[in-house]
């Protein structure tokens, strides 16, 4: 029997550009052409002013650690506890859930407000997940 796998996202028409982006090594956000609001998760209109004129752009991939838990139990399929489930605030404004790699999963190492940068982890040939690591320098 195969090892239990971590949950795999299944794109929808509204989110496909995001997952195409991560596969190409880009973190893509959307900006409203009318009011300049930057938002996440993806949708083909602005949740701030309701304009349907929005553009996809490549985000900087920079952000900081907004908050997290270190999950011990129960562990999700495909995860070995303890592991941090983090929320990252991106330089462009939106926040997203993620994991923090290349960093001990401890309260001492995971300091709130630490600078992070995006990295990409391929789950299979269709889905690549954006994750974050402590920023260099």
């Amino acid at each position, binding site marked *: 029997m195969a090892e239990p796998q971590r*949950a795999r996202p*299944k*794109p929808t028409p509204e989110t496909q550009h995001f997952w195409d982006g991560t596969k190409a090594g880009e973190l893509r956000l959307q900006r409203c052409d009318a009011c300049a609001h930057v938002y996440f998760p993806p949708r083909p209109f602005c949740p701030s002013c309701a304009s349907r004129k929005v553009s996809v752009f490549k985000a900087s991939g920079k952000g900081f650690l907004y*908050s997290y838990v*270190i999950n011990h139990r*129960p562990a999700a399929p495909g995860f070995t506890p303890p592991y941090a489930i983090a929320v990252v605030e991106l330089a462009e404004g939106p926040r997203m859930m993620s994991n923090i790699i290349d960093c001990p999963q401890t309260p001492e190492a995971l300091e709130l407000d630490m600078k992070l940068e995006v990295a990409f982890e391929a*789950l299979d040939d269709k889905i690549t997940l954006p994750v974050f690591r402590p920023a260099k320098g």
Partner: protein
Amino acid sequence: MRKNQVAVVGAAETTELGVIPNMSQLQLHADAALNAIADAGLKLSDVDGFATAVETPQQVCHYLGIKPTWVDGTSVGGCSFMLHVRHAAAAIEAGLCKTVLITHAESGKSMIGKAPRSIPADSLQGQFEAPYGVFGPPSMFPIPVLRFMKTYGITHEQLASVAVVQREWAAKNPRAMMKDPITVADVLNSRMIAYPFRLLQCCLVTDGGGALILTSADRARDFPRKPVYIMGTGESVETPMVSQMETFNSSRAFKTAGPLAFREAGIAHGDVDHLMIYDAFAHLPLFGLGDLGFMPHEETGKFIADGNTRPGGKLPLNTNGGGLSYMHSGMYGMYALQESVRQMRGIAPAQVPNARISVCHGVGGMFAASGTIVFTNER
């Protein structure tokens, strides 16, 4: 909505609470409903309005043999029943129905006749949260806690004291699941679930249910129990994704629902004799005290740690022991409402002397939704 026009005239929990391996979730609904009907001195055929969550109204109505002319299946998580109370009060006032039955039941521990919760892979949660290892409420609900602590200078010891104080209340309640006294050290040494939270800062997982019966205040005088009036109500939703809350320093849904209910009731915080804040996890009373405007968020941890919410304190909070020590079947809002009604009737196991106004504040999902009810026993 006008205040004190509608009253609770029947209220009961399931005959047993805790581990109930001999009843399906649907039968737990019926057990709670039959107890509430008996409490109100009514027959099921008197019920013309019905509300429930998770199970559909048609499922429970057919099982009970109820033929309603008004139904509400609002299902926004554990505070759904606060929203049902609000909607039922509006419906009764509008003349859509006369006697509303609200039921909750959950086979949360025994999992008999209960559909498992799942996150579809193509939902926004399935795409943007589930892949990062969230697995049930303990891995999600505490995610805002570290930011909240840093912003307001809240300590781990203060967050542990929430569980300690609520155990003091539970010790007075024969139906509470956990009654043995605990200390801050016990909490901080209990096994880690999702840092910063340990076992004793997470709610219980039990079986049970509860039901309420509402009617107009004018009719309420003819019932066997002391009427408990709906003085004010509020509700809101924010987001099903905890990662997408506007801020982790407060809950937008709390800050909308709570003040709405206070304004409708026309009360100030000093008027509140008894308070319930849905405590699925230990940080919720702190969010609630701040977001409902009882005090600045900075003071909430110290307020609880200093004993102000314990038995004999100036603001009795979660007097049944709460979701941390009384019971938590998964959607605890109904049990918070039951305790507010008991306090207003003057029959709670840990009765607050001369309590006249009770505020009952609920959360749904991980800060996804909120409902607040202000009760009074004086019209």
